[in-house]
């Protein structure tokens, strides 16, 4: 038989109870999850639709939580405006939008679970998400299987090249960001008669940074400027010293930089400390430098830096001003990329629903019908709110779901504030090129 020391028995009883409790709690939790999430009976689309269910899956935990949270905030605001100010979807009898939020977690595992859970619990008609490309891909495979349209807010190019039928993306893809940065810099250089001989491309080495940087490089070469050197680094980098030394030696006129987030701040400060005079630093890819958090952390170091944005908060259309103001009122801060993408994506869905109600009155929420509607929409500032919220003011999707008129806005940090300077500058703002 098995002998136990009596002392151990004394401890083991209480510990045993504790551990037993943990197991019981886990089992009860599992059972509770099961009991409270019965799949709703599959409804055949009734003639009278009371509400349209919109799902949103964003990373609310982990290192991307900052972006995910803002996207969810934007979605809540938009749903509120659509339901109350715009009266719901009129072609569907005034049906309201109902938002269901799910946390994508930090890995494809959790993103897939999020998608499955969202679908099995609520069966939304359209889903938005998931900001990070590999999370979005995990979600897309599930939505593709279930035939639920997914409007993506992740930027990496290949998401629309996988042959999925039910994915859509309005936001400008990563390589577009890269191209835009180059176009902007070259245009400014011409305007101000600045010579650009040496160019350095600096980027963080994940798939996102690499895709954007490739966009930068190919556009540079297309315009006849050969980048002298490309420096890559892991975004967890803690010290830019050696990179700064290399830059000092190369003495570039322009640096194109694709940061992840925190590395951008570190780089800006290191560059400032070094005293190296670089004529211009153009960011690309939407992350870092010009967002309020980066400005706060880096202070003066990011003055005159630019970055490409998937959203133009200062675009002077009627609806854009309205929504930016509403966002600021409700959340006390300016919307950045993450929110902006959701603004026009969700508005696009709303306008699509309106059209679906007209085009397919018998079965408007059928995924294939919705797909046909989405692909048929040709939006500009005069006929669409979504277009008014979009940087280029034009939205038309290609067969693979990508926006043919994808474009970015470029922001510059002037006087500690992010200002839109390209393609149209904000009122009273002149772009500063090169850096004084």
């Amino acid at each position, binding site marked *: 038989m098995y002998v136990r020391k009596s002392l151990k028995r004394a401890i083991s009883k209480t510990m045993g109870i504790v551990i037993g409790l943990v197991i019981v709690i886990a089992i009860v939790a599992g059972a509770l999850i099961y009991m409270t999430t019965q799949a709703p009976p599959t409804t055949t689309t009734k003639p009278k639709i009371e509400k349209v269910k919109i799902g949103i899956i964003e990373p609310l935990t982990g290192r991307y939580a900052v972006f995910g949270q803002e996207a969810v905030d934007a979605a809540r605001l938009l749903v509120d405006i659509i339901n109350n100010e715009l009266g719901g979807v009129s072609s569907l009898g005034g049906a309201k939008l109902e938002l269901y939020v799910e946390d994508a977690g930090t890995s494809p595992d959790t993103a897939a679970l999020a998608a499955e859970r969202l679908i099995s619990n609520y069966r939304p008609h359209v889903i938005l998400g998931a900001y990070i490309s590999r999370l979005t891909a995990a979600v897309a495979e599930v939505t593709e299987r279930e035939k639920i349209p997914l409007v993506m807010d992740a930027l990496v190019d290949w998401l629309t090249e996988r042959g999925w039928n039910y994915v859509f993306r309005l936001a400008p893809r990563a390589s577009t960001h890269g191209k835009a940065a180059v176009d902007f810099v070259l245009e400014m250089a011409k305007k101000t008669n600045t010579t650009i001989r040496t160019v350095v491309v600096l980027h963080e080495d994940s798939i996102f940074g690499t895709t954007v940087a490739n966009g930068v490089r190919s556009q540079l070469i297309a315009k006849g400027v050969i980048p002298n050197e490309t420096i890559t680094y*892991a975004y967890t980098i803690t*010290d830019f*010293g050696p990179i700064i030394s290399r830059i000092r030696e190369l003495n570039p006129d322009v640096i194109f930089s694709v940061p992840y*987030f*925190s590395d951008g701040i570190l780089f800006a400060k290191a560059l*400032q*400390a070094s*005293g190296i005079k670089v004529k211009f630093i153009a960011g690309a890819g939407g992350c870092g430098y010009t967002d309020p958090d980066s400005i706060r952390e880096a202070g003066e170091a990011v003055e005159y830096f630019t970055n490409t944005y998937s959203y133009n908060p200062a675009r002077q259309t009627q609806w854009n001003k309205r929504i930016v103001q509403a966002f600021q009122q409700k959340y006390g801060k300016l919307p950045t990329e993450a929110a902006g993408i959701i603004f026009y994506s969700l508005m696009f869905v709303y306008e699509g629903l309106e059209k679906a109600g007209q085009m397919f009155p018998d079965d408007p929420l059928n995924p294939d019908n919705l797909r046909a509607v989405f692909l048929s929409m040709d939006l500009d500032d005069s006929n669409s709110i979504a277009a008014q919220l979009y940087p280029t003011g034009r939205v038309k999707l290609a067969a693979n779901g990508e926006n043919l008129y994808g474009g970015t806005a470029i922001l510059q940090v002037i006087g500690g504030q992010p200002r839109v300077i390209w393609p149209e500058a904000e009122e009273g703002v002149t772009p500063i090129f090169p850096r004084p």
Partner: protein
Amino acid sequence: MLPSPGLLFQSVLDGIFLGFLYSLIALGLSLVFGVMGIINFAHGDFIMLGSYLVWILANSLRSDPSLMSIATVPLFFVMGAAIYTAIIRPVLGKEPLIQIAVTVGVGYVLQNLALMMFRAEPRAVQTTYLNFYLNLGLVSVHVAKLISALLSLFIVLGVHYLLTKTWVGLAIRATAYDREVASLMGINVGKVFLLVFSLGIALTGLAASLWMTFGQADPYIGSSFGLLTWVIIALGGLGGVSGLLASSVIVGVIQSLTMTLVSPTVSLAIPYVVFIIVLWFRPQGLFGKG
């Protein structure tokens, strides 16, 4: 794309400065390991914690991060004592795997506490007086790094003095050498352990405030520092302060040179490759006494 001699020299200099700061970080770990045989996997995460603390203090008081060490060092000393009593002492007699596991748990807790409180946004201090470069012709010296390096060196030598020239130091070294004999000689081994562990943690508080004069805090810098510190200790052995300094500088220079000559990506992996090779062929480190 061959770098100029100036760049090479610059890179080596950068590496040396960073190396000295690493030596300060490694010192705490080395002391604890040498005296108590305890492996603190969470060592790097304490630096992370310290960095956040320094960020909060320096920003609210609008002063230089290095001055914050006045607050962080005593605070971390007390925290170290608390952790020793609550977590480390109970596992002293248990198998090494459990000892390591417990400190891994501490690291996990610290990392995720930081994640919960600060999200993943990096934090940098606004006012630093020393964040600029001095141009000395051939090379440029980042003043903040230079000062941190000098201060680290000073402290490391100070601790060395403590260990070799004072009674307390003697007690510590005796306990490290043979704790049973030491206790027979009347040394309160428990008190020595407490002191050494608290000192080790206090040193991380100091290192954090120096780091924040040119670096920034995010929940994951702990892992970067952690593994790197272990590489330094493996290289330097547990022989003494000179070995520690030398291996820290070597690691710093290797990292810096790889970043400059090869690529920053590779520079992440090279120290670890060196680590494994050293472990294979000279387990006592390059300077250790075996």
